[in-house]
């Protein structure tokens, strides 16, 4: 059954038709089979229903509960604990600006304000065309590329207000957009959720292996001829005597 949210009146189509349920049950079986105990499949199952609907609705949670033989309340307790599960419908592209301390200081705050103004959205809101949901996110383990913007949880490194505005414009126009470190083009929110549920999209080989800052140390080591110790000719550790102390 579809609920409509007062603040965000979106028509929700009936998603979990018998046909869809039959298909998702196949997927759910595969997910459950990976684990020694079925309940471990709950997080991936929630990613799976999110990949179908774009968010996790009461119906989606009911589906998960049925697959695992647990109550709706048990599923709800879990789904609401984790921030990646959307409770309301959102856009095809979730644009998350990192505003944790390091990115904020490096300009994440300015980027987030610029996007709010540019799109006329508050945190968590979606553009009228249903393309972009804007939010701020916590540290995404890319601080050496600050300030960082994540779109559908792909990396857009070293952003500025101007590049971020261009990025959301391109997303809304449907132009091809490629993450800095990620696949050759962005997939949608639903497609990304399916990968998180554990279904491959065949794109692991796309994109760079490493970029810029990830290679900073390696480049300096190469330039200076620094390597790890040779196991067949070990040096003395600096704190272990004279020869080592160089």
């Amino acid at each position, binding site marked *: 059954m579809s609920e409509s949210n007062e603040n965000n009146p979106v028509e929700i189509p009936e998603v979990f038709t018998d046909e869809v349920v039959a298909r998702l049950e196949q997927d759910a079986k595969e997910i459950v089979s*990976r684990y*020694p*105990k079925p*309940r*471990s499949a709950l*997080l*991936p199952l*929630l990613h799976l229903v999110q990949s179908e609907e774009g968010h996790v609705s009461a119906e989606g949670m009911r589906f998960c509960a049925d697959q*695992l033989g647990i109550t709706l309340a048990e599923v709800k307790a*879990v789904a609401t*604990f*984790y921030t990646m*599960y959307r409770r309301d419908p959102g856009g095809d592209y979730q644009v998350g600006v990192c505003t*944790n*301390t*390091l990115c*904020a*200081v*490096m*300009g994440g*705050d*300015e980027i987030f304000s610029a996007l709010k103004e540019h799109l006329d959205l508050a945190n968590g809101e979606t553009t009228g065309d249903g393309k972009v949901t804007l939010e701020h996110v*916590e540290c*995404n*383990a*890319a*601080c*050496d590329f*600050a300030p960082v913007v*994540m779109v*559908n*949880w792909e990396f857009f490194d070293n952003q*500025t*207000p101007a590049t971020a505005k261009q990025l959301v414009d391109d997303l809304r126009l449907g132009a091809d957009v490629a993450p800095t470190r*990620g*696949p050759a083009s962005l997939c949608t929110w639903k497609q990304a959720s399916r990968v*998180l549920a*554990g279904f*491959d999209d065949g794109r*692991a080989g796309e*994109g760079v*292996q*490493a970029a810029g800052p*990830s*290679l*900073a*140390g*390696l480049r*300096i*080591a*190469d330039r200076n001829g*620094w*390597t*790890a110790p040779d*196991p067949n000719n*070990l040096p*003395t*550790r*600096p*704190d272990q005597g004279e020869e080592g102390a160089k």
Partner: protein
Amino acid sequence: MTTLTPILSRNWDRPDSFTIDGYRATGGYEALRRALTMDPDSIVDLVKQSGLRGRGGAGFPTGMKWGFLPKDNPNPRYLVVNADESEPGTCKDIPLMLANPHVLVEGVAIAAYAIRSQQAFIYVRGEVVHVVRRLRQAVADAYEAGLLGKDVLGSGFDLDVVVHSGAGAYICGEETALLDSLEGYRGQPRLKPPFPAVAGLYASPTVVNNVESIASVPGIVANGAEWFTSMGTEKSAGFGFFSLSGHVTNPGQYEAPLGITLRELLDMAGGIREGHRLKFWTPGGSSTPIFTEEHLDTPLDFESVGAAGSMLGTRALQIFDETTCVVRAVGRWIAFYAHESCGKCTPCREGNFWMVQVLDRLERGEGTEADIDKLLQICDNLLGRSFCALGDGATSPVMSSIKHFRQEYVDHFEKGGCPFDHSRSTLWADRPTTEEGGNR
């Protein structure tokens, strides 16, 4: 002088570094082959001799942890890799898994064999979809090549590996919360003891290790414990990633022996960005007390950083120059802890909520001297009194910033606002303006 030791990052400049062929071309999976000829217990001993300590923050000796698994428990044993990497500032495991997932997979296979486990999980934070793709592909290719699955390389050893994506919750990096999450529950920490070694996943004996810890194992097996101890210091052996971020000329990953100093690392990284000077930095993520210029020569090993009043943590060196407002920085971190508190215990749930209110007030210039004392009081109720280390960690930035920069808190309310121009801290602050906004 300490020099860099690219080991895990050695092949990252190969465009195919993340593929099984690329990894094998640089000697990948030879250590597994060797390990499978050894007695499992002797691998545990080797890792003990190497002195490898957990790279996930706490620095617990890895071999010793493996040795804690009870010999008489009939339940299956599990290996769980903690790839949740969410501590603010920490950014080493994600690039490692993106560029070289196979070194982790090889480490998983060796570690599982050593602890006699036939089922391993890699719990990766969900917010990094491409890393999930790379890991899953690496695991699939390893199965295909007979490096995982039934009868690994004809040794009779069976191992299944599952890549499991989290769903956004910093607390799931705490090892017992992670286990609850992996069992399909809300990620809330468990009371210890029992430790995971005794009752972990599904109440069975379980080893939880960080990505970098496990990825360091193939090198130890291939090159020996002495090779590992030839790097680092007596009690902090080996190498690790030092992740420089913030106001530094060349931020990034620097793989070096433990005990290197920030001064040495900054020399390599081109120093603080031009025209500015170091103000404060975290040695190991936001949960470790901040340091200042005074600590530039502190060896970055577990003991020395501890003796200087902080923690080595995850070697996440977030570097801030004189344009940065420390009150703002700390306020933002505490907003993070308040958001991520799992709510299980009162000191952390309430303490962080109130610290956010007080810090906001102070940052706006509406605070008072009493607010600073209030913060210290709240920290006093948190530190050592919260259920898990998240609560303790939250006190680090607050207490250390008041210790080093109390006057800056005072300046805010004396001036009736923040004395800093935040735009001067940005990545583009010193770039010539080129166009509208000037922000290319």
